[in-house]
């Protein structure tokens, strides 16, 4: 066990700059969004934007329009903006493929030539993934909190902390689910680049599937296989609670990925 902590410490030490830099960037992004929302709010832009929409569009969009055309709505965008989601998923896949990188470089030979069971390599990676996810979300929420404290105009309703936590929790589980997928792919791969590319392409395909499924009825029947289907920020911003089913499904995807990684890594030949 202590050997795993030692490995985890070294892995985190190697990744701390990447995780902290990305976390601070996303934290800064939250603050920028708050500054943008403040600017629109103080110039009366939300009312103007709403008025510009034709009545049929306002009817079509329903309550989501008022949810998004508001200060709180823009602040929440920081938790489901495509750039934020893709950054977090890329980080998850990068961390999940640490074992593949160690196989590729040959570092794993030195580690596993010691009395260390293979499953600790996977456990260490899962721990690194969990910690990185927590750090990223904490920094993002820290950015939201700081931005609201410093930049939010007075007398404007903020998004509730329950909503922010729900968005962060759902986003965090989405990140872990992709981490699980990345770890499963990486545990069977020889090259990190290949594992990363497969993980990235899968994420893109799943995102497109979910997107098409939301717009086009026939695609909806297969869109359930996409993990993105289980991240519904719009519904939460409109006031719906965080669906437990979504958390469960994403958690199961992550667990299945981790389980597959344990099984595959225990059986595979390690050669570079």
């Amino acid at each position, binding site marked *: 066990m202590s050997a795993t902590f030692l490995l985890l410490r070294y892995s985190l030490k190697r990744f701390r700059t990447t995780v902290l830099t990305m976390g601070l960037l996303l934290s800064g992004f939250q603050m920028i969004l708050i500054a943008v929302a403040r600017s629109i709010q103080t110039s009366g832009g939300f009312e103007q934007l709403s008025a510009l929409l034709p009545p049929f569009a306002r009817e079509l969009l329903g309550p989501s329009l008022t949810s998004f055309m508001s200060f709180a709505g823009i602040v929440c965008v920081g938790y489901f903006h495509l750039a934020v989601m893709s950054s977090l998923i890329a980080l998850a896949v990068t961390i999940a493929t640490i074992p593949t990188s160690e196989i590729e470089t040959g570092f*794993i030979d030195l580690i596993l030539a010691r009395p260390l069971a293979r499953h600790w390599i996977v456990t260490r990676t899962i721990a690194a993934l969990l910690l990185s996810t927590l750090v990223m979300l904490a920094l993002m929420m820290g950015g939201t909190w700081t931005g609201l404290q410093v930049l939010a105009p007075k007398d404007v309703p903020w998004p509730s902390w329950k909503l922010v936590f729900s968005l962060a929790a759902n986003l965090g589980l989405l990140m872990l689910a992709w981490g699980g997928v990345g770890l499963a792919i990486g545990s069977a791969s020889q090259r990190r680049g290949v594992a990363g590319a497969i993980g990235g392409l899968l994420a893109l395909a799943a995102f497109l599937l979910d997107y098409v499924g939301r717009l086009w009825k026939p695609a909806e029947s297969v869109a359930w296989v996409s993990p993105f289907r289980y991240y519904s920020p719009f519904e939460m911003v409109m006031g719906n609670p965080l669906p437990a089913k979504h958390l469960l499904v994403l958690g199961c995807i992550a667990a299945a990925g981790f389980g597959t990684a344990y099984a595959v890594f225990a059986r595979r030949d390690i050669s570079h």
Partner: protein
Amino acid sequence: MAPISIRGITKQYGRLRAVSNLHLDAAEGEILGFLGLNGAGKTTTIRILLDLLRPTSGEALIFGRDCRAEGLQARASIGYLPGEMGIYSDLTGQEVLDLLAGLDRQTVDKKRRRELQDRLEFPDSDLRRRLRVYSTGMKRKLGLIQAFQADPRLLILDEPTEGLDPLMQQSFYSLLADAKKRGRTVFMSSHVLSEVDRVCDRIAILRNGELVLLSTVEETRSRAARRVRVSFAEDTSAPRDLPPGSEIVQANPRLWNLKVQGPLGSLLRAMSGLAVRDIEIEEPRLEDVVMEYYHEGAE
């Protein structure tokens, strides 16, 4: 209990048989050279011993422990130097040694590490540097320190002197001699046959995944023909018949180059009536025998 006991190991990759029904034992306290051309199956065998690769059939034991079923106990007594040191370039040498020492079950004695550093001329200032600035030789020295630092009972070394300068090679040989003196077993692969000749007690030669020779270095060397150079004071024609085991490689009127297998007595007797001016005898070389085995047609 034998430090290494390989029983009928076969490793197949699809149609390719990397190692074929290999049986091999290493005795306690010996230095066993593991030889073969690239792709002969040496590294595959080493990786099976470390449970990095799983054999298609057969089993390998380290001090009586199955490399797979009891891998943790088996590897607890191994110090391993890989052929290529794959290490994170953003770590310092010190961090690598500390990390690997932390993963060992044996406690690493700081004095021992200091002694290794001194003998391999690896000062603390180098240990504090990041690995990205290390030369090939420095990485090799770091690799040797991490393999030897826990003073393991069995050392598995893959091309240990690759990249080391001649002085460091000498230091390494002295480390090996000390390890042997303390009863440690060394299993090393090498392409440097002069090194094998110098440090190994026995050699095992693999060819296309099959063991083609397992013998002591002395015995192997004795199979080699000696090179004999005879110069004459006057023109001498080469005889039609030479004693069995002797063969003229090149003959000039005043100089013969011969290869002699076995004792020289009969050759000397055959030349007793000739105007011999000088005789030079080269000791048999391990390299000559090993090279024969490397070639496909060797017996």
